[in-house]
């Protein structure tokens, strides 16, 4: 039967909230992963897009190849591949880690900033995000138009100067709507690293689930975490929207 006797959902919800310290540490770890991956993705993606557009036959093909391969394979497969790469190459790592503590409302929270798994996770997410961001940048650069760089060269600027002073300022402003898309949804993909042992938000769900004393319906836990993601993504999305409206240049 579908309807069983379930414990009061509100009670369950509060029980989950009782684990706020774990949720918080998971959340911060997730933000940390997200932030670094986004930054790596931004610079690498921009570099790839510029290479693709202005790189000349060889480099532009290399950039395109990278983008197509990363976009054509699942994030999970990429993660699993990269995870065992160091061991295959013979690089042995001890359980090194970099962490910091904070004490909040009586609970001692430890957050690991870097360890082997987190590093691999960040690199994978960054490399992956770069390929997607490169597509957005490419669209923006294309929309700037051939004439701009011709005009820059006509006053004696070098190609690089033209790219840096004329094309990029315009492309970066034009890319904001679609880039906000990627930026807002990237946190969702950080979840995948739980599989290699990173204690991010989703992983904490398992901790709460398997707690020996307090038993909660796993669905409730998942839903709570899903809601946290939902709220966070909506906030980021809204925030970027406001940013976009504030920095408009007429005609761009």
């Amino acid at each position: 039967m579908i309807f069983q006797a379930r414990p009061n959902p509100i009670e369950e919800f509060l029980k989950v909230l009782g684990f706020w310290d774990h949720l918080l540490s998971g959340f911060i770890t997730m933000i940390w992963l997200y932030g670094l991956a986004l930054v790596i993705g931004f610079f690498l993606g921009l570099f790839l897009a510029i290479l693709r557009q202005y790189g000349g036959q060889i480099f532009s093909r290399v950039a395109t190849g990278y983008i197509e391969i990363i976009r054509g394979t699942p994030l999970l497969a990429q993660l699993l591949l990269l995870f065992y790469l160091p061991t295959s190459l013979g690089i042995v790592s001890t359980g090194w880690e970099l962490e910091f503590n904070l004490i909040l409302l009586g609970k001692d929270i430890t957050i690991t900033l870097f360890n082997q798994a987190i590093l691999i996770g960040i690199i994978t997410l960054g490399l992956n995000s770069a390929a997607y961001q490169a597509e957005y940048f490419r669209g923006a650069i294309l929309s700037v138009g051939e004439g701009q760089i011709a005009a820059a060269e006509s006053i004696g600027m070098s190609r690089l100067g033209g790219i840096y002073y004329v094309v990029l300022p315009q492309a970066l402003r034009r890319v904001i709507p679609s880039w906000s898309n990627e930026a807002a949804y990237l946190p969702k993909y950080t979840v995948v690293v739980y599989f290699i042992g990173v204690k991010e938000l989703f992983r904490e769900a398992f901790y709460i689930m398997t707690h020996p004393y307090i038993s909660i319906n796993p669905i409730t836990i998942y839903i709570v975490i899903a809601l946290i993601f939902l709220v966070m993504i909506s906030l980021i999305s809204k925030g970027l929207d406001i940013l976009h409206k504030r920095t408009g240049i007429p005609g761009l």
Partner: protein
Amino acid sequence: MLELNNIWKSYEDLQVLKGISFKVFEREVKVIFGPSGSGKSTLLRCINMLNPPDKGEIFLRGKNLNAPETNLNAIRARIGMVFQHFNLFAHLKALDNVSLGLRRVKGFSKEEARTKALETLDRVKMTKWADHYPAQLSGGQQQRVGIARALAMEPDVILFDEPTSALDPELIGDVLQVMLDIAKSGTTMIVVTHEMGFARAVASEMIFLGEGILIERGTPQHFFTSPKSERVKKFLEQLDILYGGHDRLMKLSNGE
């Protein structure tokens, strides 16, 4: 001062320029005209090496532009270009459009560049709009800023690629007036255009280009009274019909 020697250029399989040669002297205003597809724009882009020619040499004050050692960026700073579609830097205000080259290519300081840019904008009568973005300006205004941008670099010669073809008729007059002023002040100009009134007023020599070949050259008098080739005659007739050349001729001559 500028010499073109036997310029050949092709795009894909199409031979666009076939052996063009001519000289341009200081303070000259050369007007190049002809049917579309005759390679006029391509020729201009060859001169400032945006699209280098396949064969032939270009000499600017004696320097061979095609030689491997030439610094193309430095050369382009001495050749100005005004585009048919303006190509103003959309993310910069009018003032910054003009001063960008001064700051980043010629190395002026912020203050020096600003002063010079304002001076130049004054010459094209756009001082009031220095703080406007290109999107806030009309076509004619944008083109004038484009001219200022080229002027500010104090180039040896300015190339005009059909500067008024993309403008609404009412706006053409202002731009032509600015071009007239510049021509009178002694700037060396090479202008690709259909505006025969302008040519008649200030051109030192006119060149008719057809299918990539230099068909006829001569003073404006020559062309408007007794052109030699049939093609030129037909072309001028068509222009007259299309543009009502007479009217504009009158207006500009009176505006002198």
